[in-house]
């Protein structure tokens, strides 16, 4: 789960990381009040779960409370990559001398957390990783032992050579690590970690993603979920236990299992089509899940055909076929449907579908070719 910048700031501040003073507000007058209280220059930042807020005009500096109010008025209600801004953060704008990057991610290869620091802060770290990887210093951490004092010092020393700065940065990386572990984060980063001209260190921007699987032990974090930032489709999918990713094509697909779902997308592309989505209804397949999946897909105006691809393992194909027919009779589909059921009892499944004027393709190739042709209007 992604949390907002202001929420990540709150978590880090609670752990003693120096964070410039801030408040989150939902109307322009409030923004003015906060700017007055903070005094001096402030930054007004849109709080939405999307990158590139700055480029989209969602981040503005204000010299006066009036300016802060004006920026807030502009930003609130703004649409950034499909998401409406409902909250802005008003924060003290720290003077910047240097900007660093410090972050922790889960590393698959070392099977533990890995610290990444870079003296090239304040910019997109993925670009740095791609273009000048030598500028990122990585340090794998033993998850059982945790971050040691000497590792914290090593990370800090990598960023700055001034003793008084290192002396401030080392506790910050330690606190960041502790926040990472204590919050079950999958990513925790401060970008930029700023050194101001007076030699003070500030966490000016913070980002944390939380491990969905661990939310059960963090009810206070789970409560941070901002449903306003979730599309109707995503909410529906999440509530039904479906895994859904919207794409730009016109062949909707409903598949059981993530690997098979990706493979179905790939085959659509292979046969010259474009998938409209990734949608995994899970290993087994209940009619309810299939119908919810259809609902989600039909709400996308681009979609021209729906492809259902199910491997019947423990759940048998004939049962899936019957559930499907019943569901379709209760609530007919507004889009053409092509079906392929394979695995346990597929012959019987094909027979059941045939009795109801439907058919199941024999192979995945066959059904995908057909779906692609239909999306093009050739079938």
């Amino acid at each position: 789960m992604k949390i907002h910048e202001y929420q990540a700031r709150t978590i880090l501040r609670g752990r003693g990381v120096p964070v410039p003073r801030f408040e989150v507000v939902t109307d322009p007058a409030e923004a003015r009040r906060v700017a007055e209280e903070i005094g001096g220059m402030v930054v007004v930042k849109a709080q939405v779960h999307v990158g590139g807020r700055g480029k989209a005009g969602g981040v503005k500096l204000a010299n006066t409370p009036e300016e802060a109010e004006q920026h807030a008025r502009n930003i609130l209600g703004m649409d950034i990559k499909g998401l409406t801004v409902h909250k802005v953060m008003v924060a003290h704008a720290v003077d910047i001398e240097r900007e660093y990057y410090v972050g922790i991610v889960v590393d698959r290869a070392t099977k533990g957390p890995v610290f990444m620091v870079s003296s090239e802060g304040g910019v997109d770290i993925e670009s740095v990783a791609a273009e000048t990887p030598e500028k990122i210093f990585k340090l794998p951490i033993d998850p059982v032992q945790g971050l040691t004092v000497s590792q914290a010092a090593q990370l800090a020393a990598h960023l700055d050579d001034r003793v008084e700065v290192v002396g401030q940065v080392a506790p910050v990386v330690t606190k960041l690590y502790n926040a990472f572990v204590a919050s079950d984060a999958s990513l925790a980063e401060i970008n930029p970690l700023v050194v101001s001209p007076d030699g003070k260190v500030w966490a000016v921007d913070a980002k944390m993603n939380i491990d969905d699987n661990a939310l059960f032990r963090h009810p206070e974090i789970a409560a941070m979920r901002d449903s306003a930032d979730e599309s109707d489709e995503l909410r529906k999918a999440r509530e039904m236990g479906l895994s859904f990713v919207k794409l730009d094509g016109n062949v909707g697909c409903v598949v059981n299992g993530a690997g098979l779902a990706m493979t179905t997308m790939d085959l659509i592309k292979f046969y010259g089509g474009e998938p409209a989505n990734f949608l995994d209804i899970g290993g087994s397949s209940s009619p309810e899940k299939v119908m919810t999946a259809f609902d989600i897909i039909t709400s996308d105006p681009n979609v021209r055909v729906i492809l259902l691809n199910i491997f019947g393992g423990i759940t048998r194909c004939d049962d899936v076929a019957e559930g499907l027919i019943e569901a379709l009779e209760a609530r007919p589909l507004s889009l053409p449907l092509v079906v392929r059921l394979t695995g346990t009892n597929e012959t019987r499944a094909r027979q059941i579908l045939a009795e109801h004027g439907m058919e199941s393709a024999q192979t995945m190739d066959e059904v995908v070719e057909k779906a692609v042709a239909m999306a093009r209007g050739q079938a």
Partner: protein
Amino acid sequence: MSIYIDERTRVCVQGITGRDGSFHTGAMIEYGTHVVSGVTPGKGGQTRGGVPVFNTVHEAVSETGANATIVFVPAKFAADAAIEAAESGVELVVVITEGVPTLDAMRLYQRTKQLGVRLLGPNCPGLISPGKAKLGIMPGAIHTRGKVGVVSRSGTLTYEVVDSLRRGGIGQSTVIGIGGDPIIGTTFIDTLEAFEKDEGTTAVVLIGEIGGTDEEQAAKFIKEHMSKPVVGFIAGRTAPPGRRMGHAGAIIAGGKGTAEDKIEALSDAGVPVADRPSEIPGLLRATLGR
């Protein structure tokens, strides 16, 4: 022959009295798997289909000589249950449970590594040596005894490939699902190494997907250490970056983990990569025909 499990494997089911544990214990036993005991704290002394239930894995191991466990314990407690198993002296711990917190999986991985215990999963379908034993949730009937090893990060995609192998008359030595989580115990390299050593395996099918660099590392291993032919498949060629495709591990992040990288690495290692699952039996026949 087969890897990791065979007819001598003695299985303890952790979480045997739960909904999934009980159901799959029945299925594993019906398949012919040697399920000797189960564990559910507080339910020791009961039985499930004739299988004695113990309060701890230690008891289950010392009373019934289990040398492998399969974990159906709920996600909150799964890692601790699996660590208990690893500390009890079993050789193999298969964690079926989905949704294990990543930090727990890290702790679990480190502990099994320290103890030299093989960990499969978490969040995996398990493994099956057809005709010998099944420690998992896959439908036993689609598998047939044979000489091709299959290793995969996926569930139903693996069933699909196995089913097509069966239709093509190609049996399997062991089919193993390593799971789709970012932190997993047994990797492609581990299984490739085991298949390479296994006399009953003549070729391997590797089913990868986007995310991470496991396939690239596997390719390197194949190039340097494997004599047996390997055929590959990679799911997610069309997946956009930054979006998680179901599995927590299936995400192209930081420009890494793309299907192209993986396919290139495998091709470089002499592994033919099928564009579509339906090509796999043919590629395998061609490879075995060499």
